[in-house]
């Protein structure tokens, strides 16, 4: 390859790099997602979460707090953390545990195999 082509290629690489960096700088702020505060309540009607699957986001080390109000009796299973609590029809059950494992996890109504919550724990 002659030096002109090399120079052209390096120039092209530099341009691409600059564009990538520009995109990063522009989106730099969006990398840190807002975390969930307080106790979230998930209302289950007819065995399904009202308003769709609830999204909760925490940083590692924070306290995960949510409550499930359900009109059906089932077992709420917080996967990954492997916490299981029974809920009676018309009753409610509370979860309160430290976010120690990073990743994306789901909570299900175990008997119905119905996902009600997606829990995101950022490092």
């Amino acid at each position, binding site marked *: *390859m002659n030096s002109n082509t*090399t120079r052209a*290629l*390096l120039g*092209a*690489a530099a341009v*691409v*790099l600059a564009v*990538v*960096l520009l*995109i*990063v700088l522009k*989106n*730099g702020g*969006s*990398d840190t997602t807002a975390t969930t505060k307080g106790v979230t309540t998930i209302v289950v009607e007819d065995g399904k979460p009202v308003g*769709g*699957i609830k999204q909760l986001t925490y940083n590692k080390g924070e306290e995960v707090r949510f409550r499930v109000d359900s009109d059906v009796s089932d077992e709420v299973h917080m*996967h*990954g953390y*492997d916490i299981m609590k029974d809920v009676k029809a018309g009753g409610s059950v509370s979860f309160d545990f430290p976010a*120690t*494992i*990073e*990743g*994306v*996890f*789901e909570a*299900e109504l175990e008997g*119905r*195999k*119905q*996902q009600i919550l997606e829990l*995101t724990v*950022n*490092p």
Partner: protein
Amino acid sequence: MSSVLPVAHALVARKDLPVPVWLFAWAASIVLIVSFFALSVGWRTPRLEEDRWRPFGTGLSRVLLSFPAQAVYGALGVFLLGVAIYAGLHGTEAPDRNFALTFLYVTTWLGFPLFSVLLGDVFRPFNPWRAVGRAVGGAFTAVAGQRPAHLRYPERLGRWPAAVGLIAVVWLEIVYGASGGVAVGLDPHAAALAALIYSAYTLAMMALFGCEQWCRTGEVFSVYFGMFGQLGCFAAKGGGLGVRRPLAAATRWATVPGSAAVVIASIATTSFDGAQEGAFKGALESTFNDLVDAGIGLTSALRLTDTIFIVLCFLGVGLVYLVGVRGMAGVAGAPSLRKLRMGFAHSLIPIAFAYLVAHYFSLFVFQEQAQFTYLLSDPLGTGTTDLLGTASAGVDYRLLSANAIWYVQVGALVIGHVTGLALAHDRATAYWGDYRQAARSQYWMLAVMIAFTCFGLYLLSVANA
């Protein structure tokens, strides 16, 4: 009507966080710089066209490849497949507590590509269908006094049956399994039935075309795992173990028609699985809703949507490759289009492997803990069996930090990219006598590789987002 698309998670209790934007940008930049750098420092004569296989450890290979040892490997393969099918048929319907799904789709389907790259084609001795085929063939020869006669395998069919089969295997897991509109994956019973049907089909094909012929071109698992086995430096040849130049064997792998389709199918199915909750989520949802509006039932609409997108992935990945090939054909001194198409397919194997590592590394680490504790101790998942005393063990999801997973994912893609470039570059120096034209042809493959690697990085950065 607008429904939220139900997605299947048979096994994964912990999903990966998306790769952060800054890491995505760094990795993409490194990929670009490395690629352009590679073009200017590339070697000028082919170095990988000969694998320079030489035997090693003759004593060891006599023991490892002896007839009784091979009988043991084969029997073990048949036994484990039997356990998986039995567990699937008679065990619990909970996918994560049944031996069948984790053994078939994680330990085998993800484990053998990894071990094949490291150790060579290790599936071959354990292949249960090959073991049965050889035993039956041997018995036939002993009784009839002559070797069984087989049909001539149609040359043009090549590895196409394996490519179609590969898509079918993944389809069963992530499309058929995602049925019913609930968060349940493939049920173990269906997996076991599929394994039985596949066994019957494979043994029939072996009877028709011969055991070794079918393993070479048609048997999905032999072809697929064998493909990854070409990258590593270990291989058995002529009844002995040996070492060879890493990557060199891959240069001859794609000489069978349909080989490109196998590696493209691998990249496409992994892409689909990685994209269905991220990059493709919106498109999948709108297609799904359109189909439901058109009066198709929820389950069928979901399966149809996913099927359409898997096929589109295959066509898309294939198209990117063919554009690269087409471009190379325009460079002075290029060989025929057909030769180019087959001649560069092997350079995609490292990309396919990198995609696998990037998308399934954490699943493999987590699920193998289950495999070697409670699934081995209580294969049926009945809760009453405890063969090894490990039935109550759990999966430690703290084992990998999110950072560790990100670095493995991005590292795999970058290494796969560089390896793919090296294979393509080496082939170009073999096809073009003139180095300058060879380098020019590689602008095209460079573009293909950058497209795949950046797409892979992009998939990781929007996973589950």
